[in-house]
């Protein structure tokens, strides 16, 4: 029975697929879109945390945090990160306390007297507060676009670190080739052209506009590219704060396993020495 029914089923599926095949061949290809043709892959970005020996450059993380604080934090939260976590960037306990205390957005709280909603100063144990009380407020303040939380941004986009760096430095006018091929292409009102963004137009205006926008405490020259790189490094840390521990444990594991494999090969040869196989 199996050998009679099975070929019939197989031929049946194949027949329906051939029908589909003709359908596919006869349908016209989708017309090319500007997004498809002119969306650029992010440029590689060299960070100290790259590679299997990668470690964070703490000076750079502090600079990146400064860029985040002075530029990005106006709209974007990092709500998965706590102020206490900043100790990993090399800040002392007192500095962390001061950063939390002086953070502009306060923590939602309750007035102990009246029980009404209130806000209070941040503590090191708090997570970074959301910038907007809710989605509606975020949309209302940003031309109907929600500024996404940045905690995981470098893991939530393909090639995330390179993407963040490319996006921040990629604002430009549409290229001549694009306008030639798609004469009707126009960036809608309230959006900004950026070839590294999947739809080519995004709601965020260019955040890093001029050199020296941030005055670095350590005297580094704050070019736009430098600031973009630093904040990218910082966002790699917010997305993967345990990266250094992972790399260290990884190297130890690999060394251990190579020794382990050498020993098991020795044991295998010893056990099998008298048996042809």
């Amino acid at each position, binding site marked *: 029975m*199996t*050998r009679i029914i*099975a*070929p019939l*089923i*197989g*031929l049946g*599926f*194949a027949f*329906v*697929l*051939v*029908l*589909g*095949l003709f*359908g*596919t*061949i006869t*349908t016209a*290809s*989708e017309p090319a879109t500007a997004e498809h043709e002119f969306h650029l892959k992010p440029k590689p970005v060299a960070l100290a945390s790259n590679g*299997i020996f990668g470690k964070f450059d703490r000076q750079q993380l502090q600079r990146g945090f400064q860029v985040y604080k002075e530029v990005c934090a106006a709209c974007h939260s990092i709500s*998965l990160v706590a102020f206490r*976590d900043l100790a990993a960037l090399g800040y002392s306990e007192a500095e962390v306390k001061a950063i939390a205390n002086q953070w502009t957005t306060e923590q939602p709280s309750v007035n102990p007297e009246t029980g009404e909603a209130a806000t209070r100063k941040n503590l090191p144990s708090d997570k970074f507060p959301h910038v907007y009380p809710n989605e509606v407020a975020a949309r209302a303040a940003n031309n109907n676009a929600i500024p*996404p939380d940045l*905690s*995981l941004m470098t*893991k*939530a*986009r*393909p090639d*995330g670190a390179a993407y963040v760096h490319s996006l921040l430095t990629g604002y430009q006018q549409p290229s001549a080739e694009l306008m030639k091929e798609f004469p009707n292409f126009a960036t809608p009102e309230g959006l900004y052209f950026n070839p590294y963004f*999947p739809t080519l137009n995004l709601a965020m205006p260019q955040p890093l506009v001029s050199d020296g926008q941030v005055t670095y405490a350590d005297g580094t020259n704050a070019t736009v590219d430098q600031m973009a790189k630093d904040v990218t490094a910082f966002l790699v840390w917010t*997305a993967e*704060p*345990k990266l250094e*521990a*992972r*790399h260290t*444990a*990884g*190297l130890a*594991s*690999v060394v251990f*396993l*190579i020794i*382990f*494999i050498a020993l*098991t*090969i020795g*044991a*295998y040869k*010893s*056990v*099998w020495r*008298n*048996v*042809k*196989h």
Partner: protein
Amino acid sequence: MSFPWAKQYEPKAPVMKWLDDRLPLPRLVYNAVGAGYPVPRNLNYFWNFGVLAGAALAIQIITGIVLAMHYSTDAATAFNSVEAIMRDVNAGWFLRYAHANGASMFFIVVYIHICRGLYYGSYKAPREMVWLLGVVIFLLMMATAFMGYVLPWGQMSFWGAQVITGFFSAIPLVGETIRIWLLGGYAPDAAALNRFFSLHYLLPFVIAGVIILHIWALHIPGSSNPAGVEVKGEQDTVPFHPYYTAKDGVGVGVFLLVFAIFLFFQPNLLGHPDNYIPANPLSTPAHIVPEWYFLPFYAILKSFTVDFILPAKLWGVLAMFGSILLLFFLPWLDTSPARTANHRPRYRAFLMVLLVDVLVLGYVGGAEPTKINVLIGQITTAYYFLHFLVILPIVSATERPKPVANSITEAVLKGKGGTAPAKSAIEGQPNPMPAE
């Protein structure tokens, strides 16, 4: 049951003798994976993958149980609880990356295990039951992996659940009702997440149970081997321990090394970036794709594009489930007297085409549905079904296989330029009577 020359368990320590008289558990282990299980002496490294699959399951269960202690099964808090594991739980990043990549490792190992079975004819009599139970394990693994991927409640979790439970709505008349009943709502939400977690915790133990049956069924005829001839006598076998425990040790070491490289240096390579975005029912990702190990089946699903008697979606769902269920009939579709593809050159050529075909299906499953990709998907899907259901029965009935060695020992010694055996596999022991 075992071969008559299998070693018998003889407890040495008094406490083991005491235990053996009352509950012969040590004897069971000894006969299952100890010196009491005679195994063909000529197994190659492809026979390591059963043990590796067991190791992968053990890793998943251990890491999973600890993760469950920290995970919150609630649509509002699930995503953040996973991030809390990554940031605040001691070695939480290790547990979670080990569990996420461990699933991929489990599938890699099991796919190689299945390919070994296909190439060397491990599904053939008298081992049909071993194969059938293996397909059951594979189906359970797929269900477990799918539900596990939903738990972090990221964008791909949510939309993957939406798409996969949507398969049931392809069933005529009652489909939508069944889908809502399975999800506990109109779309994946708190109810679905809770039941997925419950089942995700349960199914691995069901898998472990079926693995016990799988090994039990294997021990009735004993392990197959690459020579394609059954065990004839003691000279053909060696005890599982220490011979294959030593060989499996090497395999486990290499497996852990590959695992470690993914876990510590590329932990997110096999995942999808969108799953680091919290689930949002109002925002559909540009491309919904399942995990890499489901991509060939996803390509089969997508390849049916015309309504012919049945709606295209139903064809796709039937074909996708059919592509796995047909494996249950494999032992009866393949009628060749020869066991391994080494002795069946024509069949081997088709099998190699199938391997490439499935890899191409995997590529198509993850690629954008451009015209050319859809075409490739339809051709490769057709080959997949034709291979198992048409080509295999015809080739196995018509191809005359190459001659097989008289015994495992002859095959081994021929390979080494030796002559007929005078001794048992383990030198220094007298040649025993052939088993009858």
